[in-house]
């Protein structure tokens, strides 16, 4: 892979500087006219380095696609099904990105194109290839959209099983998608949901750039941060889900606050170039009380939308605003109060049922930091692929934290000027004290901390450009960073792949399995109980407002081991009398329960065999993708 010594670039007047970007083209010493002649005579090598890697990477990626055997994934998910050309395309993109960084200040479109290409190359494979909905939770959200379209109204107090009414209490994302489904003339969100990571990623990119530009004038640092964000965003929260949109809105609010809510007289020496890190941007211009009040009004629709979309994000947002209030620069209690009141108003009206229930359980979860920060419901990752993914997740978190930590030590003046971003990243961490959010809190805290962490990680890898005097960067540091930057980006890329695709076998569901589940659920009469080992299978919640659900293996392993001794008896004794109950057991459940360690090896097969042989259950349908049984009772 090519390694390029970063060239000092601090182009662009955005942010706060007022300095004009350097003129693109030839060095000042070369006569302009002769340079033009030379350019006509031979292609500009820099331009060639900008577009050629994109072209080569696109060709390699396109060539790899038909050779990706996603239908025959084994325990390593997509990792061993992706051909060498796919991995080569990612390396070529990385090399191209590093090459375009040399001109990042004068030609920012090239790194932008590379970042967009990376996003597509990393997350576009399922969107282009899969013939079914990727990720069972996305299909759950598809079911919510169907439910809203069928009802044409919101029923926040209906009290559906499995807390499914929560989706009517924070319905914004689903009502938006209902509008899109109808306006697209599509049958459902299933037709486009695999593209959600790409669309959300593309919409988020300019918001990230806006935030990063508020703190740095160095385009190389900004683009590297965006690149690292893409690589570190393996956490898989950007599927068709409310939290992806909510994060976008959260970051938009943060960007407006950081740029338009600076209090007069608070910048101090952060306006002095002599003090600032050469890569840092001066503090944005201050605003008066009236101007900030107007900005609060401008932000109100976005704040209400955040509340309408997602229950946790407003909490994260208030925590972030509270953290910003700790600085003199962004002490805006008015905005915090407005955000808090809007959240409270939503929680006490639309979100009242779940809000009061959560308050009731807070006493148990408060202070249980270890339990709250645990990933998933229960169980340990099992199997080569899931275990590799789990280890890669940890390594990725540590790697990003280590890089960001290095910047905190080495770029103290940049950290001083970008302190609000650091605080905004750290603000969600205390939420571990409060609640486990159904085993998801770890991922959510990581996701909300990531934008800031990516910025500081990039600051560790891209040394200040053109510093002098106290800011002078030693040549040795430049040499180290010339190696560290490409090595780190490739290492993060290597970590992303198992983190994102290591458990992909759980996420791809063959259409025949989806059809089996749909038939089974369509067959069930209103009020029937659907039993399955886990809810992580396609269309698990199809018709969820007409049926009850029990995902009986979503509990600790020892209880499941006890259940496996006589599963038919275990289920029968816990079913309500005269229940109309169906058990759906599918391949995806087998993969999920084994990979997440909910059932011991062979447990799912044994369960299927035992229930099929039990007189308490009758097989309704059996295919190569699963079995559907009906409870017939003793």
């Amino acid at each position, binding site marked *: 892979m090519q390694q390029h010594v970063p060239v000092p670039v601090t182009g*662009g*007047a*955005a*942010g706060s*500087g*007022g300095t*004009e*970007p350097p003129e693109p083209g030839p060095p000042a010493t070369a006569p302009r006219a002769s340079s033009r002649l030379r350019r006509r005579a031979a292609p500009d090598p820099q331009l060639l380095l900008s577009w050629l890697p994109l072209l080569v990477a696109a060709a390699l990626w396109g060539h790899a696609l038909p050779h990706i055997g996603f239908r025959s994934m084994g325990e390593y998910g997509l990792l061993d099904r992706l051909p060498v050309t796919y991995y080569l395309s990612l390396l070529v993109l990385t090399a191209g990105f590093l090459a375009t960084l040399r001109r990042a200040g004068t030609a*920012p479109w090239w790194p*932008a194109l590379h970042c967009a290409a990376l996003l597509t190359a990393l997350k576009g494979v399922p969107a282009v290839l899969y013939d079914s909905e990727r990720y069972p939770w996305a299909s759950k959200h598809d079911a919510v959209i169907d439910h*809203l379209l069928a009802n*044409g*109204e*919101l029923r926040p107090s209906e009290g559906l099983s499995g807390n499914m009414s929560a989706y009517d209490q924070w*319905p*914004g*994302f689903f*009502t*938006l998608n*209902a*509008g*899109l489904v*109808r*306006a*697209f*003339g*599509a*049958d459902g969100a299933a*037709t*486009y949901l695999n593209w959600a990571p790409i669309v959300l990623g593309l*919409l988020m990119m*300019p*918001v990230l*750039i*806006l935030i990063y*530009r508020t703190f740095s004038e160095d385009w190389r640092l900004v683009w590297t941060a965006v690149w690292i964000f893409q690589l570190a965003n393996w956490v898989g929260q950007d599927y068709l889900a409310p939290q992806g*949109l909510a994060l*976008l*809105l959260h*970051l*938009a609010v943060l*960007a*407006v606050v950081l*740029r*338009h809510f*600076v209090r007069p007289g608070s910048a101090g020496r952060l306006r002095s170039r002599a003090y600032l890190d050469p890569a840092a941007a001066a503090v*944005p*211009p*201050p*605003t*008066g009380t009236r*101007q900030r009040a*107007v*900005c609060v009004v*401008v932000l109100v*629709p*976005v704040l*209400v*939308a955040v509340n*309408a979309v997602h229950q946790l994000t407003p909490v994260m947002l208030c925590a972030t605003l509270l953290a910003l209030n700790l600085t003199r620069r962004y002490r805006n209690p008015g905005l915090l109060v407005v955000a808090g009141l809007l959240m409270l108003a939503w929680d006490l009206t639309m979100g009242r049922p779940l809000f009061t229930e959560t308050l009731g359980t807070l006493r148990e979860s408060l202070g249980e930091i270890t339990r709250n920060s645990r990933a998933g419901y229960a169980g340990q990752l099992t199997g080569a692929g899931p275990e590799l993914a789990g280890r890669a997740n940890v390594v990725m978190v540590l790697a990003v934290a280590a890089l960001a930590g290095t910047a905190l030590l080495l770029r103290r003046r940049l950290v001083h000027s970008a302190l609000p971003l650091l605080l905004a990243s750290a603000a969600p961490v205390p939420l571990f004290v409060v609640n486990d959010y159904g085993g998801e809190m770890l991922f959510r805290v990581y996701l909300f901390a990531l934008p800031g962490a990516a910025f500081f990680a990039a600051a560790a890898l891209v040394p200040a450009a053109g510093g002098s005097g106290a800011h002078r960067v030693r040549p040795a540091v430049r040499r180290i960073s010339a190696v560290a930057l490409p090595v780190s980006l490739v290492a993060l890329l290597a970590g992303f792949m198992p983190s994102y695709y290591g458990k992909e076998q759980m996420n791809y569901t063959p259409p025949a399995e989806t059809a089996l589940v749909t038939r089974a659920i369509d067959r069930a009469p209103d009020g029937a109980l659907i039993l399955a080992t886990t809810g992580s299978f396609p269309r698990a919640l199809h018709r969820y407002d007409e049926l009850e659900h029990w995902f009986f293996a979503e509990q600790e392993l020892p209880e499941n081991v006890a259940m496996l001794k006589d599963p038919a008896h275990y289920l029968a004794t816990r079913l309500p009398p005269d229940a109309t109950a169906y058990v759906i057991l599918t391949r995806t459940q087998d993969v999920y329960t084994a990979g997440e360690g909910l059932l011991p090896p062979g447990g799912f097969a044994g369960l299927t065999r035992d229930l099929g042989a039990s007189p308490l259950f009758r097989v309704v349908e059996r295919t190569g993708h699963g079995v559907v049984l009906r409870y017939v009772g003793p």
Partner: protein
Amino acid sequence: MSEQRQPILPVRQALIRAGVALSGWVALSVTALPGGSPLRWAPVLLFVCFGPGLALLYPQPGAPGPGARLETAALAAPFGLSLAVLTATALFLVEAFSATAFLVSLAAFTTLVAALPGLPLPAATRGAVGRSRPRPGRRR
């Protein structure tokens, strides 16, 4: 994404405003096409994501400050999607949801605000407190 400040000609500004104002009605009209056609979903998606947000944020009153264009580009989608979320949710709450109601509401809003100056985000305009006068921009 150049950050240079360049005055935008009134004719060009008027054309952009007219384009943004019309985008919603175009999105509405393409819903007559068969479902699933790219000629249908692409304009609808672009309008819902960017139309209302651009109408809100563009053009800023006075000469655009540093980063104003980047700001408009970045915030158009979050602001537009926020309005789309609120519109769709409100329609469901009053039990009047339909694709037409959804798009007409957004298109009407977009047309209305496209005729008005952009939202007064102070740091992106000349109005910020204590801000030095912008230097005359070099034209290319």
